[in-house]
């Protein structure tokens, strides 16, 4: 899985709502091999205030058409600039970066849990798992009904359990409030989202004995292990989110 720097062509920029959009990018050659939870370091051109690249997960890959998709949340100047990309524009990225979710054991009961832009790597993971013959449940959390994105996409890959903070769709509350967690005995959980959410899921897993991997979202200088800025404090000392992660087993974290 050699990393590469490549300028891809934007073939689509699809706006999901005021906050989210999906970029479809065409590689000039054949896509590299990629694994779920890997990410790309995206160069934001034309934004005077974004000096560094921005890490964005591989949301989806279409090997036949050599396209990848990125699901992006508008958070600041970088993502705002990306949201204005138009068909035909070029986007320079370094990819694929980082480790990936581990494979579950045969027959394990799996949960993919995520919230906000943290749901991005879960789609790729779900497709991967489906190919290997696993059944999956999703547990996805959003602020409210209007924020729910890609419900159909995920529904086509597994059962989707939803929470919204205001209860306007699915269960009211946070992810860990969802009754499905009481009704089922998940053995392996893959999780990505805001840190408080991941911490809540992690402690639920610890309680129930489920294995749990989380994909972290630290600030990154380089994305390739060269700057040591993206560290996370683990039981094995400071590790780099970009090369030792983004996926960590919660047992390695000091959460």
């Amino acid at each position, binding site marked *: 899985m*050699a*990393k*590469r*720097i490549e300028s891809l062509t934007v073939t689509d920029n699809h706006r999901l709502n005021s906050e989210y959009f999906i970029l479809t990018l065409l590689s000039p050659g054949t896509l590299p091999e990629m694994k779920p939870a890997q990410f790309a370091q995206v*160069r934001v051109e034309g934004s*005077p*205030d*974004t*000096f*560094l*690249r921005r890490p964005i997960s591989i949301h989806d890959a279409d090997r036949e058409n050599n396209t990848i998709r990125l699901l992006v949340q508008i958070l600041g100047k970088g993502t705002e600039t990306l949201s204005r990309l138009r068909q035909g524009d070029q986007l320079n990225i*370094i990819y694929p970066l980082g480790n990936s979710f581990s494979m579950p054991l045969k027959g394990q009961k799996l949960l993919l849990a995520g919230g906000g832009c943290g749901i991005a790597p879960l789609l790729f993971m779900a497709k991967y798992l489906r190919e290997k013959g696993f059944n999956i449940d999703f547990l996805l959390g959003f602020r409210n009904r209007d924020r729910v994105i890609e419900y159909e996409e995920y529904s086509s890959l597994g059962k989707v359990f939803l929470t919204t903070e205001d209860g306007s769709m699915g269960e009211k509350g946070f992810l860990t409030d969802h009754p499905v967690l009481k009704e089922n005995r998940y053995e392996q959980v893959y999780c990505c989202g805001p840190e408080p959410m991941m911490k809540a899921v992690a402690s639920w897993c610890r309680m129930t004995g489920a294995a749990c991997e989380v994909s972290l979202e*630290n*600030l*990154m*200088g*380089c*994305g*390739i*292990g*060269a*700057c*040591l*800025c*993206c*560290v*996370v*404090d683990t039981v094995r*000392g*400071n590790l780099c989110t970009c*090369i030792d992660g983004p996926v960590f087993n919660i047992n390695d974290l000091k959460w």
Partner: protein
Amino acid sequence: MVNLGFSIGDLRFRNPVLTASGTFGYGSEFDDFMDVSRLGGIVVKGTTLEPREGNPYPRMAETPSGMLNSVGLQNKGIDYFGKYIYPRISEYDTNVIVNVNGSYVDDYVALAERLNSFDRIPAIELNISCPNVKMGGMAFGTNLGSAREVTRAVRAVYMKKLIVKLSPNVTNIVDFALAVEEEGADAVSLINTLLGMVVDVKRMKPALSTITGGLSGPAVRPVALRMVWQVARAVKIPVIGMGGIMNTDDALQFILAGASAIQVGTASFIDPLASVKILEGIEKYLTDKGISDISDIKGYINR
């Protein structure tokens, strides 16, 4: 054929493009993208006697045309380096330089002594300018007496080429360059990062866990270039310039101002190929101008 080489004493560099410590890992992080051996040299991560965990996260903040870091010399120590990294890094067909750090003069000396025996390390870069450690680092590089002392002590034990890396956080950097030259440095490199700070207004807290950190990137280039120019006019030993070099044009600014060579730092984060692109760019520039030796344009603006 254009001659791009330069020398520190009898140590020959095939071209003037090196990578800056702390920004290029141990080279291997870049193997996927380029042939690291094409470079004039690489300066590896800041190394200490003992392993160091560095500073707590967050250690980085983006700034206008630059970044702030407070990594704090995270590294696994010289033993680990010797055992696991040195064998691998020795494969590169270029000058591999170790960036040497310590809290006390004795640390620097002990580390330098150890490095004498590493055959494939022809030079060390004495980092007396790290702004991100509580002890040592910049404290040495901002006090003339200490700068002298640590240089003298290391010079006394280190047999190969000694490069001293200067801090820009001083009133007169020329004084420091002259002092370390007098104490036997074979070259000086500059600049290390400028001490800076960012406040996260939303959280009403400093952006870095350490409050202050080191500023690098194009933002600092005018300051770096000024210092390189000042130092190059004052010392006789080679000057290795760095600070915000992103492309060929930037690199040429430093050479025209008197640098014998340059280091590419933060640029490698934005474009991992920056160093080789700059190397190719310099070669093309000289070829296009019909200049056969890069030394012909070194310090040209002073003529």
